[in-house]
């Protein structure tokens, strides 16, 4: 059995690390080896955040090889652009459509590209693209903070993950505070349904 390689990209504070921990715990539950590599410190202050997740019978490298990602899970459209070096025509891109404008754009020193330009660039690499409105779905689930779980649900729907939905849900249950559990489970289902259509 081969290794599943994932890139999870977003902005500091969006819950990238919690999402990858849930994936990692699900991997352990299903008797896989797993490695998750993340960057702390300086990179968390509202900056770009990326996590590499590798799941398989035996995994060594903490980082994914360029061109060999099975999926890129984006919490923000531009953040996926930054990591397209990991994509090939086999890669699935699942991303939230909602933009988070970096201060460089507010200050007028950089431009934020249109969604058409962004998706056009994705298409140079792969045609397997799923855009979802994770923020609105998260609000529908009961809290904007469940956006990360909406995206985990959407990732599960693409069958890029080697484990069952129930395992993921059990890991969500173990990892989120009890009072937000219902919203998180709903967020997972909404993300799953949205990406299955």
């Amino acid at each position, binding site marked *: 059995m081969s290794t599943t390689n994932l890139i999870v990209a977003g*902005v*500091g504070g969006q819950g990238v690390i919690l999402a990858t*921990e849930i994936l*990692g*715990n*699900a991997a*352990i*539950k299903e008797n896989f*080896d*797993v*490695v*998750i*590599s*993340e*960057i*702390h*410190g*300086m*990179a*968390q*202050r*509202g*900056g*770009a955040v990326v996590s590499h997740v590798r799941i398989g019978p035996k995994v*060594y*490298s*903490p*980082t994914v*090889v*360029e*061109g*060999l990602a099975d999926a890129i899970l984006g919490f923000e459209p*531009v*953040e996926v*652009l*930054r990591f*397209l*070096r990991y994509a*090939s025509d086999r890669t699935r891109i699942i991303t939230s459509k909602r933009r988070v*404008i*970096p*201060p*460089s*754009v*507010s*200050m*007028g*020193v*950089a*431009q*934020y*590209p249109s969604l058409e330009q*962004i998706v056009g*660039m994705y298409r*140079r*690499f792969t045609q397997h693209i799923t855009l979802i409105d994770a923020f609105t779905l998260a609000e529908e689930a009961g809290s*904007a903070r469940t956006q990360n779980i909406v995206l985990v649900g959407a990732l599960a729907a693409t069958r890029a993950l080697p484990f069952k939905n129930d395992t993921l849900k*059990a*890991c969500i249950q*173990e990892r989120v505070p009890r009072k937000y559990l219902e919203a998180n489970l709903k967020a997972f289902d909404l993300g799953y349904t949205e990406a299955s259509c």
Partner: protein
Amino acid sequence: MHLRISVSDLSKLDILVRGRVGESHLLLGNEAVARGALEGGVSVATTYPGTPSSEIADTIALMAREAGIYMEYSTNEMVALEVAAGASISGARAICSMKMVGLNVASDALMTLAYTGVRGGLVVISADDPDCFSSQNEQDNRYYALLANVPCLEPSNAQEAKDMLLSALRLSEEFELPVMLRLVTRVSHARKPVVLGPVEARSRDMKFSRDVKRFVMVPSNARSRHLVLLEKMDRVKKAAEESSLNAVLGEGALGVVTSGVSFNYCMEALNLLDLRASVLKLGLVNPLPTGLIISFLKEHDPVIVVEELEPFLELHIRSIAQGADVRCRILGKLSHPSYLPRNGELSTRLVLSAISKVLDRPTPVDFHYIETGSRMAEALSPPRPPVLCPGCPHMASFHAIKVATGGKAVCATDIGCYALGAQPPLSVGDVMLCMGGSAGVSSGISKVVEEPVVGVVGDSTFFHASIPGLINAVYNKHEFVYVVLDNCTTAMTNFQPHPGTGVTGLGESSKQILIEDVAKGCGVDFVKVTDPYDLKHTISTIKEAVDYKGPAVVISRHKCAILESQERTAKGDEIIQFKIDEEKCTECMACIKSLGCPALAVTEGNVSIDSILCAGCGVCAQVCPYAAIRKG
């Protein structure tokens, strides 16, 4: 077969302290090291926080009470190592963790501690940061092990990080030497399933016994202790030949020598190339097993040395080959051509490309094609560097410095969140060298230039290493303004306490040491405290300081915005956010251009305040020339 359970609703503490032997949990490399401290019967753990090492001590702080470990956030790494050394000399097992540049500070203690040696096992943990993810350089601390002549172990993942801490403690006790455990960001900050082991009993023999010839390093004693050190390291070298820390994996004509995180990239690359090769994985990188290396060189050709940063192993392997007159092609960073870079972190791609080049084969992935496409994609992405948080009091302090000096000041900044102030639009910070360095650097600049000179330092950094610089400034009559950005925590590394907070790492209350008292004690006559959220007062205070003859200290004190918002949320206090009065706003962009607060955004030419991000500090309202920002 290990019992596999997942994190479940057990908290981190439940896993690390109450977890059962044989259970496998997803742990960060640094958390695994903390568990290793418990398993290894460590009694004393010291540190000064620094990325990527911080979670080792933070996790021990969490466990300390229940696990019965004494931990402390020392004022700096040298003090941390001195405390650990004192405990170890008295028979306790001790660890001292720090980021790699911290070892520069602690090195004075380490060099001589190698001579005296230790009693209880003592492990110095250095977390290196290849690629400078959050550091000012990418120094390779294996050279410190060589310089101090102490053993150095290098784990490749979280499981090994825990297990090698135990090996290092045992090695330290067996040879009575301090031992280094060298981690890197991709080990410290990578999560892997880690199998918990049994908890060893604490050392029994905890007492101080006097031995002047061994522990008082006056020259006559130091000379003989140097010989003792050389003899001990000879014995470690012999033991290294049989050590299970070093291993040969796989078979093939091609030989690969590697250590630490680089081992992972080698294994992946060999799998992707579907190549038979023999890998010599060195867990003990100082001293090296000469005999093992000679026989490996004799049995393989060529041998490629795969390591991150400096050609540390390669240099030694070349010297060993020459000494034993082995003719084998040794390829790496010192060969012509060279196969791997001496800067940045390694990756499977780099190792794959290196091995492919050695074998004159195409790489199994077309990296050239990827490079072209990804460069276009990256060019389309607006940069998103780390920034100061919404409501960060440092933003207000930097704005005040700029206004008070008319933007003319030369500014030496320091290590902490506030280094981000060097970026536009704040652009305060012209030099940054090392922890606590801004006082000394400001002094030097002030001797040369006419412009006002401002040194900037954080509160934790102030206690860490700036005090001798400040005393020097008073004594040698330097003239500059020293602005202490006091946000009442060590924010950059995850909010550890420090002497100014009056709380210890164990959560006990302690004497709060005030920066203003320290500055006065250093002989500074101009010492003033201001709240940066009161811009007008902060600007006038800094102006006064600029006009003062002699070193002037301004303490710009306001609690970190993240901590303040957490405290408010806990108390149930509502944050009153600010709003733009669109009728009054002229879109002059003064707020954006002077502060660059992430809560301020411009959409289609209109300024707005993000209701999720706004921390309610009100500094932007003070900056607005049209009174167009008000409490909403």
